[in-house]
Every structure is written in structure tokens, then in C-alpha cells.
């Protein structure tokens, strides 16, 4: 098991419940057809329907907003909200959030039962994580196309990361 996947156990897997049902249905069909002499059709819904999830991380320099006119900024906000709606209508949006300034962040760690909490982001960087969109897509290519449609891609950079499917206990 890779190190990353170990750390990745963090995820809540509320979609897994539905997923288990689909899997259960598949095996039920498989068993029902068993010995019937019929050729098993490729009815595995995982092959046909299972979508992957991707997190589009939006990085930009906070100063870009200082260089914008109020009208430009308003348009960007409006475009960003419209894009979320477009994704939502297509059933591809899971969650989209903008983040407040990194200056308002706090960073926490616990080592040997000692809790330390410091003001500020995890790392001071020129470009910071300003928001993210969690989407469903059939593959990385589609996720990249979604990322390219994010209005802030014109000002910052979008990192697209596949979601780790946490195995059940």
C-alpha cells in the first residue's frame, strides 16, 4: 500500500453505499444467470457507468484581483458561479468552494500528543490555493477539459488530481 494511499484514508465515502448496491446487483445478476446457459452480458455497471472523481485545485496570485477593475472582478465572479451551474446541470458537480485569504488560515499538527497550532497557511507561496471544484468525469481527459473551462484558468493554474477510492474496512 502506497504511502499516499495510507494518508488518503481520510476520505468519507458516502458514494460507496450506492456503489456497494450496484456491485451487489451485479453479482446478483451474475448468480441469477449462473447455469442458465445464457451468455453473460457485459452488465457490469462499473464498466459502463462508474465515473471517477477529480479535484480541480485553483491556484493563483492573490494580487491578480488588485489589478482588476471592479467590473472585471464582478464578471469573473459571475462567470465562476455560472460555470458551477453548468457543471451542476450536467450532473458533474459535487462541490465547489472558494477559499478565504491564506492570511486567515491556521495550521495544526499533533506530534507525540503535543498539539501545535500556528497562524497562517501551511506554506507561504506567491500563488496560493484559492478554491477548488470537486467533479465527476469519465476520465482524466474529460477532467482536464472541465479544468480548462474554469474562468480562473485564464489568471491562475488549475491542478487536476484524481480522487483516491478508499477501500472499505
Amino acid at each position, binding site marked *: *500500500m502506497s*504511502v*499516499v494511499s*495510507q*494518508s*488518503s*484514508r*481520510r*476520505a*468519507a465515502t*458516502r458514494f460507496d453505499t450506492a456503489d456497494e448496491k450496484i456491485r451487489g446487483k451485479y453479482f446478483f445478476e451474475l448468480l441469477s444467470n449462473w447455469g442458465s446457459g445464457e451468455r453473460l452480458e457485459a452488465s457490469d455497471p462499473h464498466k459502463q457507468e462508474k465515473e471517477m*472523481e477529480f*479535484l480541480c*485545485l485553483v491556484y493563483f496570485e492573490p494580487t491578480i484581483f488588485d489589478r482588476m477593475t471592479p467590473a472585471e*472582478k464582478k464578471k469573473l*465572479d459571475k462567470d*465562476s*458561479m455560472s460555470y458551477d451551474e453548468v457543471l451542476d446541470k450536467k450532473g458533474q458537480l*459535487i*462541490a465547489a*468552494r*472558494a*477559499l*478565504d*485569504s*491564506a492570511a*486567515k*488560515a*491556521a*495550521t*495544526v*499538527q*499533533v*506530534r507525540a500528543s503535543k*498539539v501545535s*497550532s500556528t497562524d497562517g*497557511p*501551511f*506554506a507561504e*507561496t506567491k500563488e496560493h*490555493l484559492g478554491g*477548488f471544484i*470537486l467533479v465527476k468525469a469519465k476520465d*482524466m481527459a474529460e477532467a*482536464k477539459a472541465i*479544468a*480548462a473551462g474554469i474562468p480562473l*484558468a*485564464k489568471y*491562475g*493554474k*488549475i*491542478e*487536476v*488530481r*484524481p*480522487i*483516491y477510492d*478508499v477501500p472499505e*474496512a
Partner: protein
Amino acid sequence: MEFALLFYIDDADFADITPEADRKLQDDCRDEDADLERQGKLVAARALRPTSEAVTVRIRGSKVSRTDGPFAETKEHLGGIVILRADSMEEAILLAEQSALAKYAKVEVRPAYDIRSAP
């Protein structure tokens, strides 16, 4: 209010983890998420696949460029994200401190920003 917990991890911190500790961490994380969900505090929680599988996209003018790899190559990287509801930054920080993964990761707590209420 909503907050994002950003879990930054260093692979080296997991190098010596025993299978038992690994299993316990996994169980604790799952219980924690279920607990937050029961309390109505969980919006979404997701773990990320390795940064080696990331692609970074940018557009300048009308030119789209796509490069393999994460936005930045760093020793510690974003390994997971939790969006939660809390009454205050104080409560969000407390929840981050209580998370089992805080023993291994550094957890950045960031308030979400409501663009609908932007000036």
C-alpha cells in the same frame, strides 16, 4: 460557516508506520468522518491520488497548456481535503486537532469564501 481542512503530508512520515498503526489510522479516519456526518458538520471529504498522477492546466490568451505533474513539486503535498461546517474558526481548528491524521500530516484550516456575498 464552512471551512476547508487541507491535509499536507510528507511521505517520509509514513515510512515507519506499522501495519497495525496503519489500520488503526484508517479506522479512526473512517469513524471520524462518520461522526462529523452524524453531527451534520461534514460537507465532503476526499483523499487524493499521488501528485504523480496530477495534470496542471492554464490558459493564457486563448492558448491552453497542460503539463503533467502537480502545480508545485514540494516535499509535503496535499493528500486530502475535508469541507466542514463549524460555528467558528476556533471550532474548526479544534476539529482539525482531533483528527487522527493530524498526528502525521500538517492540517491547514481555511475559511471558505462565499463569492455570492462578494462586494
